[in-house]
C-alpha cells in the first residue's frame, strides 16, 4: 500500500473542494493506504474544534474523527496560517498536529503521490 500526501488550501465554507479532499482521503485510507493531510491558508479552519453540524454546510469533523481512529491518517495544520486566523493551539480539534510548512515538504519526500487541492 502507498502513501498519499495531500496539501489542501480552500476554506470549509465557500466551496466543496475541502469536502472532496476529505472524501478522497477517506477513500484512500479505506483502501489501505496511509494519508498525510496538510492544511494551509483558509483550510486551517478544518482543524478548529467545536464545529457544529448544519444541514446547509459541510460537516467534515465527524469523518476526520473516524479517520484519526484508523491510525493511517495524519492531519497537520499550518501553525502560522492558523494563528493568523485566530485559531490557537487550545482551539484545535483532537488528533491534529500543528507545524510549519517544512512538515508538508518532508511528507512529500517519501510520498508515493502528492496532491495539491485548492491552490487556485
Amino acid at each position: 500500500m502507498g502513501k498519499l500526501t495531500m496539501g489542501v488550501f480552500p476554506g470549509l465554507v465557500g466551496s466543496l473542494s475541502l469536502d472532496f479532499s476529505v472524501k478522497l482521503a477517506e477513500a484512500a485510507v479505506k483502501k489501505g493506504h496511509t494519508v498525510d493531510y496538510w492544511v494551509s491558508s483558509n483550510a486551517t479552519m478544518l482543524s478548529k474544534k467545536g464545529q457544529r453540524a448544519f444541514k446547509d454546510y459541510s460537516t467534515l469533523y465527524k469523518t476526520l474523527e473516524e479517520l484519526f481512529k484508523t491510525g493511517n491518517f495524519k492531519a497537520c495544520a499550518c501553525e502560522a496560517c492558523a494563528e493568523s486566523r485566530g485559531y490557537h493551539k487550545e482551539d484545535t480539534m483532537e488528533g491534529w498536529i500543528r507545524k510549519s510548512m517544512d512538515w508538508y515538504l518532508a511528507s512529500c519526500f517519501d510520498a508515493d503521490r502528492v496532491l495539491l487541492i485548492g491552490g487556485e
Partner: protein
Amino acid sequence: MAIKKLAFVIKSLPYKTEASRLAMTHAISSQTVEIYLEDGDNVEPVVCFIGDGVLNCLKNQATAKHYDITSLEMHIKNSLLLDLKVMICKEDLDRFGIKEDALIMNAEDLGGETNALIVPYSEIQKELDSVNHIQMF
C-alpha cells in the same frame, strides 16, 4: 540518502488570492525540512512562473506601503538568496509585453548570487519532467 525534487508551478495572479504567496512560502520552507528527514535526505524545490503567474515577478511591489504585508517580490528575492531555482516563462512575458528589466531577476541587494531564469516553456516542461512531484498554484 536521496534528493526529491518538488516543483511549485505558479500560474495565479499576485495578491488576488493567497495561492502564489503559499507557493513561495512552501518552497522556501525547504530550507528547514532536513529536521524531519534522515541524514543525507533532502528536497530540492524549483519555482516556475507561467501564464498570469509571471506577473508575480514584477519589480517595485509596494504591499508593505499599502497593506503592511510582505511582498511577493521579497519572497522571490528570498528564494534567490537561498539559491532556489526560479524559472519564468518567456512566452508569457512576451504575451504581456514585459521586458527583463521590469522583473525581479536577482537578490543582489541582499547579497544573493543566484539569478532567475527567463526560459521558453519547453525548458520549464523539461524541468517538470525531471521532478518527483508537481504542485500547481
